[in-house]
């Protein structure tokens, strides 16, 4: 028997001075292999053309459809209704700027954070368009790729108690991004330069190890491992010069 699903969806349009934040209920019949992406599109087509939400790839690649699904951040296109109870509550991701209903602007946040950590390869080499591209060891390329799989959906940030309390906290995705450049042999930044970026209370030392980021990341990034290694690496970077040589450690990511 197909279920009738009841949806409670957050509604608010900041552009409209008459709009007040409220929850609106919808019912819809469940179909086979239904995702929340399908639900939202059907709701907009069949019941309420004013409903705002984001998506583009519908395949867990663009990261646009992040929202709070029954209390937990996740990707709408990645979430099947059959894994959810009959009553489903959808809220926009906290922390990010609300555009309307379920749509938030993650771009501004990510841009600001990436600017803080200077999210690009720092190199003094002058680019030669005629030369062959430098080769990279396959294992290194794979390690970088593993962290590069982040789709910037913002779910890890929205789930993080530290990020909720303190808006200057870099968050798991940004720290993961720094780790990605640490792995990249083309980036010539020194440990000291990385320390200046993340060796702070806004960076890795602000993380309280709640691991909500790990538990919600829809791409299953190894955030727990990355955060642990970053903390160790930065902690040792700060004390290596005062430790006796047998205690010194150079942590590899």
């Amino acid at each position: 028997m197909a279920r009738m699903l009841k949806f409670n969806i957050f509604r608010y349009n900041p552009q409209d001075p008459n709009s007040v934040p409220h929850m609106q209920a919808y019912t819809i019949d469940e179909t086979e292999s239904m995702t929340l992406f399908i639900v939202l599109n059907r709701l907009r087509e069949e019941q309420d053309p004013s409903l705002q939400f984001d998506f583009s790839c519908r395949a867990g690649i663009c990261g646009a459809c992040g929202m709070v699904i029954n209390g937990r951040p996740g990707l709408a296109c990645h979430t099947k209704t059959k894994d959810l109870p009959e009553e489903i509550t959808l809220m926009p991701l906290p922390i990010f700027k609300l555009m309307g209903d379920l749509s938030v602007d993650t771009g501004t946040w990510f841009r600001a954070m990436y600017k803080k950590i200077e999210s690009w390869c720092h190199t003094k080499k002058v680019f030669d368009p005629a030369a062959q591209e430098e080769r990279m060891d396959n294992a290194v390329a794979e390690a970088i790729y593993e962290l590069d799989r982040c789709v910037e959906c913002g779910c890890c940030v929205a789930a993080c108690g530290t990020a909720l309390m303190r808006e200057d906290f870099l968050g798991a995705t940004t720290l993961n991004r720094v780790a990605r450049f640490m792995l990249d042999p083309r980036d010539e930044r020194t440990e000291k330069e990385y320390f200046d970026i993340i060796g702070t209370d806004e960076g890795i030392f602000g993380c309280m190890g709640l691991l909500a980021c790990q538990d919600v990341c829809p791409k299953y990034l190894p955030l727990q491992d990355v955060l642990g290694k970053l903390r160790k690496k930065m902690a040792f970077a700060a004390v290596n010069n005062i430790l006796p040589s047998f205690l010194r450690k150079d942590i590899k990511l």
Partner: protein
Amino acid sequence: MSVPSTATHEGLPVGKLSAYFDWLQMLTGAALILFMWCHLILVSSILLGPGVMNALAWFFEVTYMAQVGGPLIFLAFLLHFVLAARKIPFATGQQRLMLANAKRMRHTDTWLWVIQATTAMGILIMGGIHMWVVLTNLPITAEKSAARIQTGFWFVFYLFLLPMVELHVGIGFYRILVKWGFLDRPGRWVIKKKENLLTGIFIAIGLLSLLRYYFLPLK
């Protein structure tokens, strides 16, 4: 150089203080865990008999571990408190955010942190009182402890302090392991189960010891 987020005439240098504080918070926490395990051995030795406990207490006394170690632990306790309290939100807005997040997400690890932060405040007050009373009344003997607990007031006092400390210590142990990358992702779930069991056992041993003191015949 990181890009300064406020307009200063030049980028503020990033010091190492955050890193030192994080080290100290972890190391004082770890030292306190080790201490609590030793503490448990001393206190629960009453289960083997007042003679065993008195022998242990005497050993700590003649080796000056009580007179020197006690105040040192008190110092570690205060240092740990000051450092870790920096993470506890004092603004009600932040407290509500943290609680609402834990509830909304039904997320155990976020709840564990909430428990850690709340038990911390209880431990600060009750643990402080306890340490003061014991350390200003050396030497430690089974009879003195039993007499204190049999007043009734201290029995109830310890009934609250015991689970708070064990929870805080248990969660703290787990947190050090995850924060400092000692566990991989599967390892996290294995440790969590064991840690829960261990905390349960410690609370049980603590309760039994308390009862033993309570019913210990006084001369």
